């Protein structure tokens, strides 16, 4: 059970290899973004899923990472690796300072405090126009180069590869962590903090450590983001993004790294699926719709528009449905579903056999 499981990694590499060769460019770009989110959610999975400490403010660390590196590299000509080090270091330092008082809180209090922290960071970024560019954001961040190649070139297929190799490495490291002493300590905090303390786990130290770790990972993802797009805006610190990060971990089944990975990819692609309907134009609709409904172009335009706006609603709905029907997460949930299905099929077959025999 505690053994290293290489199978998902094999599946992942085959999948990535396939996509890299045959995937459409736009798909790769979406997956690149999803990969950056994965790096955030892997850290969040350790914090929220394993250690059981909710944070509804992690977009703040993502933004801090991105902004730090952007400001340093653009305005002060700091080399990229310097931007990276400062981004992660600043984010970790902020997490450390804010974590000391915050992590003493539990349950809803912790959720509210992290939420408050996130909104404060957003509002500071948004209002400090001189420093962060306000809502115009900062543009012109140099693209990430590795061994002399600009990874963001050609729409960034190499960036895709780079980000996902990062994801794989983080999955490996996070998997190693949860299968050993510190991982068990985190799980014990989630299981029962008092008992964990009594069993000799310094729970406050471990909560702080994993909080700082996840903040650092979020900052790293923010760094990857800003040197991919060359731009960062205040949206990257928005409350909604923090919420989505937590939702990704929850839909993934909380203490489940691979589940989190799947949920992150699915939830970040979801708006894209919902947007498929948007290319429909009023004029493209067959005539009989115009005739039979007796609607004018404007009315039909409005109707289409309404359906296009459904995506917000559907997003909310999907989160609710997942939490109600698959609280154990997308991975275990689907597996359970197939198992029940198989059992039913077997039962039906068994009955048939019995009735055949009689």
């Amino acid at each position, binding site marked *: 059970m505690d053994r*290293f499981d*290489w199978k998902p990694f094999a599946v992942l590499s085959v999948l990535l290899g396939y996509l890299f*060769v045959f995937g459409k*460019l736009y798909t790769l770009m*979406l997956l690149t973004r999803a990969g950056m989110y994965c790096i955030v959610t892997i850290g969040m999975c350790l914090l929220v899923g394993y250690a059981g400490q909710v944070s509804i403010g992690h977009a703040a660390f993502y933004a801090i990472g991105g902004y730090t590196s952007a400001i340093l590299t653009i305005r002060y000509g700091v080399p990229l690796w310097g931007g990276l080090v400062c981004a992660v270091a600043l984010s970790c330092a902020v997490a450390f300072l804010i974590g000391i008082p915050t992590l003493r809180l539990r349950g809803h209090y912790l959720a509210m405090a992290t939420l408050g922290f996130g909104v404060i960071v957003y509002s500071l970024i948004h209002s400090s126009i001189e420093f962060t560019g306000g809502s115009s*954001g900062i543009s012109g961040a140099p693209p990430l180069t590795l061994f002399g190649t600009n990874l963001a070139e050609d729409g960034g297929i190499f960036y895709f590869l780079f980000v996902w190799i990062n994801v794989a490495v983080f999955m490996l490291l996070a998997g190693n962590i949860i299968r050993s002493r510190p991982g068990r300590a985190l799980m014990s905090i989630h299981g029962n903090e008092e008992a964990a303390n009594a069993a000799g786990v310094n729970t406050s130290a471990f909560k702080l450590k994993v909080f700082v770790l996840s903040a650092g990972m979020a900052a790293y993802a923010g760094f990857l983001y800003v040197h991919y*797009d060359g731009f960062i805006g205040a*949206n990257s610190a928005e409350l909604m993004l923090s919420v989505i990060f937590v939702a990704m971990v929850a839909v993934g089944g909380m203490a489940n790294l691979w589940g989190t990975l799947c949920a992150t990819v699915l939830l970040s692609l979801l708006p894209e699926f919902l947007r498929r309907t948007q290319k429909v134009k009023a004029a493209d609709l067959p005539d009989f719709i115009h005739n039979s409904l007796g609607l004018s172009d*404007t009315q039909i335009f409005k109707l289409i528009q309404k359906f296009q706006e459904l995506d917000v609603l559907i997003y909310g709905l999907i989160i609710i449905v997942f939490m109600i029907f698959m609280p154990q997460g997308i991975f275990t949930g689907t597996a359970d579903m197939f198992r029940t299905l198989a059992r039913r099929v077997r039962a039906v077959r068994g009955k048939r056999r019995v009735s055949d025999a009689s």
Partner: protein
Amino acid sequence: MLKKRIITLGLLLALAAFAGSMVGCKAAKQAREKGTEAAKNIKEKVGGEAKGEAIKIGAIFSVTGKASFLGEPEKKTVEMLEEQINAAGGINGSPIDVIVYDDEGDEAKTQELAKKLIFEDEVVAIIGPSRSGNTMAIKDFMGQNKTVLISAAAAEAIVEPLNPWVFKTPQKDSYVARHLLQQMQDAGITKIAVLYGNEAFGQEGLKQIKAYAADHGVQIAAELAYEPAATEGDLETLLTKVKADASLQAAINWTILPAQSIVPKKMKELGIKIPLYQSHGFGNIKYVEAAGDAANGIIFAGGRLLVAHNLPDGDPQKKVLVDYKEAYESRFAEEVSTFGGHAYDALWIVVNAIKEAGTDKAAIRDAIENSTFIGTGGVFKFTPTDHNGLGMDSLSLLTVKNGSFALLEQ
């Protein structure tokens, strides 16, 4: 021991997959290139010339989300124009295909969509985005990938500093600021308060007012920002501060937010009698409706589209404006706004350039840089150093009379 071997195997596999995909990538890239070449060959063989092949033009607007009031009329306008142009035979016989995407006002989304348009849809040029922030997010990117962008957003920063590939159609913020300040100077106003929405548009506006205020002998006594999510109560608080300073002679409110309707209402409520100036963001009749009586007498600078029918017959823009206004209003049963006009201009500028120079991206850019065009925003005269192409005269001072827009009589 077994564990170790499995790990090693896994790592090797991953390495192999990585190496394989690197090789595969090159192969795929070559295949892609070959594919497009092959397609070109086929096209040439079949059609002789690429006649009948649709010319793809990209568009990114904030159709949903916070800035949907910008993106919605823009999208409608572009779709209407596409039909009109194709019905009239397209460009030199080729139909145009305008691919409109919605960025929801989110900069990251704009980035993705711009990439999608350039690399996957292979458009020859892009119009939009609706918002300044979103435009700034792809400004550098467009230059790197050498594709023309004609923004429908106002901020001066889009064309200053100049990016050879980025243009914009809305009048410069500084023109609006100078028009308003000139009017104040004429009216003998010397001390004002500036209210602005704390977002890209408002922040840019404040910058321009500050830059030109001294030239017109106007002193800014107070800079009052409010958040995009500001409530009525917040604005009441701000205006109480305006009211508290009796020496103020006027107030400017610079935003594209609903606050444009709330501020006049609250001023009326609080009994603040000084004149209110607003930005070109006020060019949507819905804001006038929302403000009710309080909107009357507001002075703002805007394009002539809003007063198309009232223009003198000799005005060069009159025909364009009236035609667009009537086509839009009869088709969509709602009043036209200047924002749709910006998209109108952007699309026509691209189409005209393609007509002249063909579908080569660099040729399109050069064609635009040497073009003139009579649009809804004014008479555009682009040059290699002026990527907005509009002068001060592209704007008029407007006001609200009995709930509708009118030219301000001097």
